[in-house]
């Protein structure tokens, strides 16, 4: 199923949570919506599911206008953040729910439903849990049951809201790999919401970075990491050091900064901001440098430095201990900064 979203707007009272979302998801694709809380990613997911409604915009799936379709007629598989398993039903009954509520004419027979549930229990590797109640399951098991319940209706689209949010790290990694396997086996168009970059990049074909109700960038891990499209994405991807610079003729300059390794092709002349990750920021000993090493802490393989300038501004820099620049650095030493890689945005 191809999902086409255009100019979707949504407000809760005075707060605009979606400000013109345009997004196309291809048939069979696995897409992550990545962003901090309040970015609108969950609202977008719920609108696709029919559990929330936009104020304006279009949502077409395979050419059909889904904004004219109630949630129960869209045949989507939705996996909730807290799984929302029916507490009074066994695992089997939970998984079978979507089939048993179909109108009598379309409802599969009892034996057929049982067969389908068996098949899913096997596929999800939870054969032994069929008779248990949700309260008797671990978080990872509940996650599998929730996915099984969503897959039982052979959904047109699979939507997952923070699917691994409530699990511990080891289970997360396991389930992540497993979910990718499930997707590859079923080929269902899948969208999931997460605030975890590693999760988004490891699992998804494409990642949609959102902030404040807008899509900031769409791409794969390398593109988003190396060429962030907006200052927000740069900062979100770890380039948390922002330095004021000046652009002239495509090259970047600032007092106390050696920006020779940074290129800013096509950027208009004038003031700009340079975003750099602390690990890409090298302090170079320089008696005339405007920055002073304020403190150094040793984390074993890394040195974490705090550098201050005359105005009191502080920036962090992470340096491998064996890095040539690390030799001869001690608190009070004067340096200039050399970003190894950075992105520059006009102010």
């Amino acid at each position: 199923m191809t999902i086409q979203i255009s100019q979707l707007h949504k407000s809760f009272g005075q707060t605009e949570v979606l400000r013109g979302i345009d997004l196309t998801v291809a048939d069979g694709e696995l897409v992550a919506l990545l962003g901090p809380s309040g970015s609108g990613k969950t609202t977008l997911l719920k609108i696709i599911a029919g559990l929330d409604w936009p104020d304006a915009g279009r949502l077409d799936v395979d050419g059909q206008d889904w904004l004219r379709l109630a949630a129960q007629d869209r045949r989507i598989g939705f996996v909730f953040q807290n799984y929302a398993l029916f507490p009074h039903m066994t695992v089997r009954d939970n998984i079978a729910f979507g089939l048993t509520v179909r109108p009598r004419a379309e409802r599969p027979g009892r034996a057929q439903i049982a067969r389908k549930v068996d098949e899913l229990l096997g596929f999800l590797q939870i054969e032994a849990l069929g008779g248990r109640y949700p309260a008797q399951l671990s978080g990872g098991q509940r996650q599998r049951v929730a996915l099984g319940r969503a897959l039982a209706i052979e959904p047109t689209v699979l939507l997952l809201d923070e699917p691994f949010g409530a699990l511990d790290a080891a289970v997360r990694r396991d389930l992540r790999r497993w979910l990718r396997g499930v997707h590859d086996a079923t080929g269902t168009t899948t969208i999931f919401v997460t605030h975890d970059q590693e999760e988004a990049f490891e699992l998804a074909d494409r990642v949609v970075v959102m902030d404040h109700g807008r899509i900031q960038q769409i791409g794969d891990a390398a593109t988003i990491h190396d060429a962030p499209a907006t200052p927000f994405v740069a900062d979100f991807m770890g380039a948390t050091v922002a330095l004021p610079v000046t652009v002239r003729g495509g090259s970047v300059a600032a007092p106390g900064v050696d920006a020779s390794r940074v290129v800013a092709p096509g950027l208009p002349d004038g003031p700009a901001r340079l975003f750099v990750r602390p690990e890409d920021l090298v302090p170079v000993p320089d008696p005339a440098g405007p920055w002073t090493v304020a403190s150094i802490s040793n984390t074993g393989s890394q040195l974490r430095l705090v550098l201050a300038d005359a105005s009191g501004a502080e920036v962090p820099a992470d340096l491998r201990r064996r890095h040539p620049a690390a030799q001869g650095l001690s608190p009070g030493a004067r340096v200039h900064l050399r970003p190894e890689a950075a992105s520059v945005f006009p102010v």
Partner: protein
Amino acid sequence: MSLASAPPVRARAVLPGFRLTFGTTLLYLTVIVLIPIIALVIEGAGIGPARLWDIVSAPRTRAALRITITAAAVATVINAVYGLLMAWVLVRYRFPGRGLLDALMDIPFALPTAVAGLSLTALYSANGWFGAVLAPMGIQVVYTLGGIILAMSFTSIPFVVRAVQPVLEKLDPALEEAASSLGASGWTTFRRVIFPAIMPAWLGGVTTSFARSLGEFGAVVFIAGNLPFKTEIASLLAYIRLEEYDYEGAAAVALVLMVLALVLLFLSNLVQIRAARYGAVTA
């Protein structure tokens, strides 16, 4: 240093005063609740089974019990439906005056039952507001079984509303969203997801409502007319027997009412315990 030479440490309770508060509670509960019930059982046992059966199976007692149980059952069915609806409206919708409506729900609890009985009688008597409308249609409420049912459901409806309300409030909205995303219609979602979740609490409220209706006295005696064999309720009969210094007769009727109420409460708790086992929300 060996363990033996280490000085022993006594664990200290975080909350002080356990003995005092527990002792007081136990004493109070015994004097106020337990001893009267035991006394009633002993009194009943003293009568002897044959005599007990004679009293209970006497036509007037049987009639009073039948009227009481019938009226309480009908009142409870009304409360079960209407109380659930009321709780639903109070929890699910936001409308002006919701807070007021919510507060009104406590009036049957707070109002002296005699006041309730009096005002219901005034409303439904032939020249009252409602009575004047109903009388030409040939419907008489006062001094009939209908009046008893009315008084009983008035005093016991909050039990259902207040039992269901908190559970409905706690119900995860994602459960309904999940049901509808899986293709369930609104009614199916209620029947298969919401109702099973609130059922134990609802049943608890309904049982308490029934138990309370069985014993309702103040509100009923005003509106019932209290004609033996027609509109005389069991607790009034017990009262009359007591007035006649027929302690055995009074105790026997009271015992029947008590056993009925206790059996119901026991059954209701059983259902709730079973439900709690798989983690359904209970009050």
